[in-house]
């Protein structure tokens, strides 16, 4: 069936919403990456089987929705009963029967599966009341957890493609661009360039062909915002792209997805096919005469291919190396044609900007960074997961109110934002409002939205070393400062971690970093030394401890620590078999001995000791 007009789309929305709401209760099973890994698929299968067996009167199998990521990955697998919003956490296959019998059959709530608020040990039934969700505002992630991942039916029922309908019928391309400019939205991929201005520039350039490309090459370690959107709500990305194409006058678009996201490829492919089948993509969209095609371009997962010029070369089938951009890609991009490249999350916000108006969007967040931003909150934090908050929310609010604070109540040490080339911010910066400019000023960056929280057992020198090693591997290797410079920077960091650092090292590293920043070809290189620069800025004493005192204060760098068995040892023998190098000897009931020459500092004894008898020095 083709949707021939906007009126028909509106009618369908009404009809589909009615169909969705006709289910007295809907089971939303989170099929996000985290929950899937924990067995969401089996839970879904079990639900269908049990429901079939029990022959529930009021419940149809269609009311089971395989939704995108709910965000609260820490508590997965998640099952939500809508419209009530009853939130079941850490659901296991064996719980399914009880849920069907009690919650679906008799509207009873299973207390044991509810979330317990650590603040007061009370159970919370609805997810909206859980602090993790209560402090969030979802725009880009609005449909995640609310609709069946790839269902066009559900997307339309949730008001999908209405932004496009409005753009195509009530606005000319110029007005669409004005609306986006009015919203103040800045690119969510990391650069933070004003999206409206980008579109306006592209639209103004004389050219027969223009391209719209969606950057789904999310490569930051620990980041999965774009993945969640592409997998859980692919239609919103497509809708954003179609609106953009209409605004700038493009007829061909590409979604660049890394092949490490196979599910995103499958879901996007299905979404494109479904949208094509009803005439939302292709020739004469919604009977308005506007045509636009979208193809998926699969990347091989090089981090550098998230950089715009490298991405475009990769889409064109060339080696994914950046080229120097004294001419911007919006002027001369894919196949040397004007190209709008936006990140997944940016495109996901566009339909909302169109349907709700740019002004409403601009009121969220701060004046210079409007709207909301999705973050993947990971590391040593209680509530790991996917979140979205208004710009300007402070790091403290994110980490403590939403994230629930540091794991096991340990002290906070640093938070790393902006992916590998971002930076580490210390406790003194916790009250910084998170937006593009303040983070950059503080020596970190917004990046695409990775947020890694570290506790006091994290050595920042080791963290810098790790991120540098990532960047050395992921540098495209084209220009010398990035390829050789980052390598040498990493070598220095390794030396310091191994206790071989000298006083000169820091000075050499600082100088080299400055040179890499001004000398590198693309953003990966110019931001490459950030792991070092931000840590030396806030944690110089820790570097000095490694170099001068040959000590790792956090007890991480194996070359600089020794394990010592103290008098607290009860002689329980537990550590002896744990030691792989047979360094520990001793008899039951007597304090054990640790031979330092045999110890390889793996920490296995430390982990098994129940009496805190082993200390790290």
């Amino acid at each position, binding site marked *: 069936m083709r949707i021939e007009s906007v009126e028909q789309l509106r009618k369908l929305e009404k009809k589909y919403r009615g169909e969705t709401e006709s289910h007295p209760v809907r089971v939303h099973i989170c099929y996000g990456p985290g929950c899937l890994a924990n067995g969401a698929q089996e839970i879904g299968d079990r639900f269908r089987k049990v429901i079939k067996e029990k022959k529930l009167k009021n419940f149809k199998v269609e009311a089971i929705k395989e939704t995108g990521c709910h965000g609260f990955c820490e508590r997965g697998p998640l099952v939500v009963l809508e419209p009530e919003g009853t939130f079941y956490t850490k659901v296991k296959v064996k719980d399914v029967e009880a849920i069907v019998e009690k919650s679906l059959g008799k509207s009873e709530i299973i207390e044991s599966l509810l979330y317990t608020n650590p603040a007061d040990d009370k159970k919370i039934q609805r997810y909206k009341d859980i602090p993790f969700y209560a402090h969030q505002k979802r725009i880009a992630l609005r449909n995640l957890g609310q609709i069946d991942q790839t269902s066009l039916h559900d997307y339309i029922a949730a008001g999908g493609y209405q932004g496009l309908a409005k753009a195509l019928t009530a606005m000319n391309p110029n007005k669409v661009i004005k609306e986006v400019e009015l919203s103040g939205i800045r690119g969510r991929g990391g650069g933070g360039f004003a999206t409206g201005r980008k579109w306006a520039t592209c639209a103004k350039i004389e050219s027969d062909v223009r391209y719209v490309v969606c950057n789904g090459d999310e490569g930051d370690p620990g980041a999965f915002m774009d993945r969640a959107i592409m997998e859980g709500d692919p239609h919103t990305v497509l809708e954003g792209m179609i609106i953009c194409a209409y605004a700038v006058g493009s007829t061909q678009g590409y979604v660049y997805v890394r092949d490490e996201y196979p599910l995103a490829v499958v879901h996007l492919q299905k979404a494109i096919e479904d949208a094509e089948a009803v005439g939302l993509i292709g020739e004469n969209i919604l009977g308005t005469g506007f045509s636009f095609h979208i193809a998926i371009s699969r990347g091989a997962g090089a981090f550098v291919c998230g950089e715009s010029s490298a991405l475009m070369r990769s889409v064109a089938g060339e080696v994914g190396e950046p080229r120097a951009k004294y001419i911007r890609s919006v002027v001369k991009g894919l196949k040397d044609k004007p190209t709008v490249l936006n990140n997944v999350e940016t495109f996901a916000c566009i339909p909302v900007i169109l349907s709700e108006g740019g002004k409403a969007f601009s009121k969220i967040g701060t004046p210079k960074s409007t709207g909301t931003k999705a973050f993947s909150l990971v590391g040593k934090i209680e509530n790991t997961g996917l979140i979205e908050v208004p710009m300007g929310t402070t790091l403290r609010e994110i980490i403590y109110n939403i994230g629930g604070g540091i794991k096991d109540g340990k002290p906070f040490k640093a938070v790393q934002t902006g992916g590998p080339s971002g930076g580490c911010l210390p406790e003194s910066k916790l009250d910084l409002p998170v937006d593009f400019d303040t983070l950059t000023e503080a020596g970190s960056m917004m990046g695409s939205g990775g947020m890694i929280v570290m506790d006091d057992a994290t050595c920042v020198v080791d963290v810098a070393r790790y991120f540098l090693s990532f960047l050395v591997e*992921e540098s495209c290797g084209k220009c010398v400062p990035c*390829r050789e410079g980052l390598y040498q920077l990493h070598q220095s960091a390794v030396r310091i971690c191994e206790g071989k650092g000298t006083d000169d090292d820091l000075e050499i590293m600082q100088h080299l970093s400055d040179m890499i920043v001004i000398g590198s070809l693309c953003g990966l290189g110019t931001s490459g030394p950030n792991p070092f620069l931000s840590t030396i800025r806030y944690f110089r004493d820790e570097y000095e401890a490694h170099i001068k005192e040959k000590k790792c204060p956090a007890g991480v760098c194996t070359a600089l620590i020794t394990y010592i068995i103290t008098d607290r040892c009860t002689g329980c023998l537990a550590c002896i078999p744990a030691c792989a190098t047979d360094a520990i000897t001793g008899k039951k009931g007597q304090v054990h001995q640790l031979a330092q020459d045999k110890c390889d500092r793996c920490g296995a004894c430390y982990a098994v000791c129940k009496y805190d008898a082993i200390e790290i020095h």
Partner: protein
Amino acid sequence: MIKFTINGKLVQADQGDMLLTVIRREGIDVPSQCHHQAVEPSGACRLCMVEITRQEWDGWSKFVTSCLYPVEDGLMVTTHSAKVIQLRKTIIDLYLARHPNSTEIMRLASEYGVTRTTYETVADGDDCIMCGLCTRICAHMGFSAISTVGRGHDKEIAPPLKEAPTDCTGCLSCANNCPTNFIEFTRDSNSLTIWGRTFETLACSQCGKTTITRDFAEHLSKTRDIPIAYFEVCDDCHRKETAKTMGRVVNWTREVQA
């Protein structure tokens, strides 16, 4: 005509000219390793970076690779500012750590007064400085027989799958343009071997001197409409033939006139 200054001197250039071209035209020595007029500039070596500013920038300046920065009216270019020299020295220093045995790098280092590397010498560092000239020239000539492989510090130049490249014609342009002479090839009496593939070389039908490879000649003959027979005689013998042919004509006119 674009007017701007290089080191304070007013110069003129055509729209679309790159800074480096104009700088060199002015006789100023700015080093580069990855630049060749035949191919698009790439900006890989970063040695040709210069500092640019404008009146209205109010003292602010930035660093650009002159090989691919197009000339602009009113630009003020400094080719050897303190920071630029620092940057070049750092790059040379990094090169020196990676390619300690390269004579070209040593020449460059001594030119810039870098005597020893500040950094850790890279174990098993070879002489390939990853300028990418070979792959760009190969692609520009229409072969694309070799390309960069991998990424990061371990990136290298190789044919597809590191097997003998089927698209190579043995023209040797890669080896002939390698700034550090890293690309090796061997010659035999009637063959040459490069990138693990052996090519038959053509021998002059008259003196036996070897010329280009049969693959290259056939490629030129096919794509450029040049008779293959042209390639079967060497240039020396071609000149002798030309002299003989013209000699016959002249002699004939002599006889006719007599």
